[in-house]
């Protein structure tokens, strides 16, 4: 297994190089460059000044030279500087944005799992009963409803309509994150409890929106997976042995039915880190999704490159982790 892991890790190197070059080339092929804005705003700017700026931004080299320069810097641990925000790209992405995204998407993932597995089991065990139909119906609603629409709908209901209509109904924040800095907790200006409580309060609606889709999908998946396992011979054998239905279900069936879920969740984790552009935008939540989107629009190449290359790395890594986890959860799989 160690040899396998090492081999896979080595295979990742050319893969990541290719992926990062592809991303770099795509960014460079985007129409326009960071100087468009300067040109539009200042018609008096001369060709020499433009050339100086172009040189200053390192835009006058061909793509492969720029890529080589970028790669050299990255290998030395320097992801460059965000032209837009004036901070190191690494600080902007890994300190400012990634933790917030991990918080929002991580909680959403957990919530989705914690709901999807029991509901999926419930639905499978009661196949073709009214309860199953209701769950199925809700799952399809959850799958079909677009996030941006659900987001605006929840904001409108919980921040505007319901608090207006029902006196005493708690008004949820209209997006954003708490107007507090963690620094203030450290300095004792705000209590940690208050800080956490405000965070939780701001996360309620976005978590609901973000978890809805995967919750619905995984419920369906769990149901199908369990139903398939329940029709297997060894389950019939277990029942014939006279085992209690609870033991059959949870000990024999569920553990096997969870194996495919591991794949799904493993592949969903890089998605957690990439954030969710639409949900983050609707709730004005400063996460990775918006960071990447803004960086692309504003042609902030260092940030876009750092974030996208990081995501490529995560996808590759979690693919490996998922494969390794198979061996852990499924004793029939052995890597050599």
């Amino acid at each position, binding site marked *: 297994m160690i040899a396998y892991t090492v081999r896979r890790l080595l295979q990742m190197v050319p893969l990541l190089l290719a992926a990062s070059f592809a991303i770099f080339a795509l960014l460079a092929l*985007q*129409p*326009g*460059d960071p100087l*468009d804005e300067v*040109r*539009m705003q*200042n*018609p*008096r*700017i*001369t*060709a020499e*000044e*433009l050339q*100086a*700026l172009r040189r*200053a*931004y*390192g835009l006058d080299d061909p793509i492969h030279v720029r890529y080589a320069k970028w790669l050299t810097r990255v290998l030395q641990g320097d992801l460059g*500087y965000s032209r*837009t*925000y*004036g*901070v190191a790209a690494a600080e902007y992405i890994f300190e*400012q944005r990634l933790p*917030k995204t991990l918080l929002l998407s991580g909680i959403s993932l957990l919530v989705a799992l914690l709901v999807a597995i029991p509901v999926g089991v419930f639905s499978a065990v009661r196949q073709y009963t009214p309860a199953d139909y209701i769950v199925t119906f809700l799952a399809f609603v959850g799958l079909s409803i677009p996030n941006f629409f659900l987001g*605006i709908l929840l*904001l*409108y209901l919980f*921040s*505007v309509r319901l*608090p207006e209509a029902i006196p*005493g*109904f*708690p*008004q949820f*924040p*209209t*997006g*954003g*994150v*708490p*107007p*507090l*800095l963690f*620094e*203030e907790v450290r300095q004792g200006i705000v209590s940690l409890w*208050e800080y956490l*409580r*405000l965070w939780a*309060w*701001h996360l309620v609606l976005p978590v609901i929106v973000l978890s809805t889709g995967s919750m619905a999908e995984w419920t369906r998946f769990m149901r199908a997976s369990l139903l398939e396992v329940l029709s297997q011979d060894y389950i019939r054998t277990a029942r014939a042995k006279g085992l209690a239905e609870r033991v059959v279900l949870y000990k024999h069936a569920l553990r096997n039915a969870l194996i495919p879920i591991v794949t799904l969740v493993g592949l969903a984790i890089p998605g957690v880190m990439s954030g969710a552009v639409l949900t983050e*935008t*609707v*709730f*004005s*939540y*400063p996460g990775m999704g918006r960071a990447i989107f803004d960086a692309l*629009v504003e042609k902030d190449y260092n940030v876009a490159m750092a974030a996208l290359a990081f995501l490529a790395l995560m996808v590759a890594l979690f693919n490996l982790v998922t494969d390794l986890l198979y061996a852990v959860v499924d004793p029939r799989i052995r890597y050599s």
Partner: protein
Amino acid sequence: MRKVGKLAVLGLTALGLALAGPQDNSLVIGASQEPRVLAGDFLSVISNQSIKAEIEQYLYPPFITIDLDGKNVAVLATEVPTVQNGRVRFTDIGGGKRRLEIDLTIRPDARWSDGRPLTTEDVQFYFEVGKAKGMPVLNPDYWQRVNLRVRDARNFTVIFEPAYATDLIGSPIGYAPKHIMGAAWEQVKRQTAALDPARDAQRLNEIYRNFFTQFSTPAYLNQRKMAYSGPFVVQRWVPGSTLELVRNSNFPIEPPGGASRYVQRVTYRFIQNTASLQVAFMGGSLDAISRVGLTFDQARAREFVNRVGRNFDIWFVPGAIWEHIDINQFPNVPQVRDLGLNDKRTRQALLHAINREGFVRTFFQGLQPVSHTWIAPTNPLHNPNVRKYEYNLDRARALLAEMGWRPGPDGILQRTVDGRTVRFEIEWVTTAGNVVRERFQQFVAEDFRKIGIAVRINNAPSAVVFADDFIQRASEGRWTGMFMFAWVSGLAEQGNLFACEFRPTRENNYVGQNVGGWCNPEYDRLREQANLEFDQARRKQLFDRMQEIWAEELPALPLYFRADPLVVRKGLVNYVSAAYSGGNNYPNWWPWAIGWESRGAQKLFDQAKYALPVR
């Protein structure tokens, strides 16, 4: 029940921090854009976003600002320099050009928020940084012409050579906190001493950007070490979410009745998604809107007006954003010759076929006026007595017939050019996804078809059409017909949009805003004259004539001027904007007087004089 109560308490506490309104004499503003940096980036080298300039109105008021009527008013200077008070002097320097000297005196009580006096050292510092070699400033032309002479701690002279008439609009120079940033600048000077702007541009740029950045990021400003000179200082900036400003007790200007009767805390909430911004207004968690907020359509949406209109005033402030259609007139482009786009009659015919009045009435309730020249009616240079092109399809047909166009078999006009038969099919480019512009295209294409003009719509995202290799390349036929977009103009109008020298071509490396390529020697001569003319009345006469020529020739098709929505909670006073307030339609150009009537704030300005209300 207890649970519900607890939740309600939790909800109220949660909102407490961002709670809007007069209860705690604070103000919460919704903006759809967040500044990238603030304060330390005083030359806007890192960012020149409009939201940054807006917020800095609270933090660093200028020596001279522009009021609601477009007039200069003194803020941190003792008085507005004029020829009459001897503070403005001209000297002829030959070639019809002049040198301009402007004397300014800093208010004796002007102080930084840490209590240090604001002096000419801070002006000198600003000047020195702007003049540094290879500084990537956005307005190199200003920095080439400007000079500074310091007389004592409070008196200085700003010199322009050659001077333009627009140099007298607003503050001629800025300032920056030398006692905070000076030491770092000395280090920058040492680092850059041996660098050559031609060879080491990248290194220079990097050093300069680092210098500005270290004093302008949220992390730095949250340490509260920065000095401000305005009525407010930065208290806390949560990136991606909110920015909180609190009153600066060292600010010298007292609003009537004392500062305690006015807003003590200003919170900006950054809500990028404008639909979410609408919801935040409906939910009552905002008091007013930033200049960078809702779109025209959103602020006018019936559901929004009905719900928000109860507690808020919704205004439309006529602005200086000019929607127009540029027309390719480079005669080397085959389509231009075929369609005769470089002949004014074609352009006149196109404008006669556009029902601008009808569009504005139907879609904007008349809140955005039809334009007849490129200068906004809010600008004193505007000439209302120019040739106007009413909607008249017969007139359009007649002009086209004059040009030799006859209806072809498919109903589309055709004529013979160099022995070839050409059809009147014109390309029309605009920014894809801009609903108003796309709607306009459909609205007009219908009428064009009636007079035998086929339209080929070629829209693309703004990043594509505004990229240098598209909009600036009409001379190479990258776009061949009409290009619809908007220009934002200020009070400092120089007529450059239609100057021959600003036609982007290969020769000048595609620089300039005269993207259609119109060139008229008389207009150009008047323009040069006007920019060196300091007598307001004579300057106006020159601009009047320029606009007459323009309206006769139609280098571009004028459509309408946009209006900016302003949403303000009832009872909030002096949060008032006009087209040029604070330089660019800022509602907080007089920020120390923003307040709630119920807390004793006195109303000084009346928005009704400068905007149209929506009910």
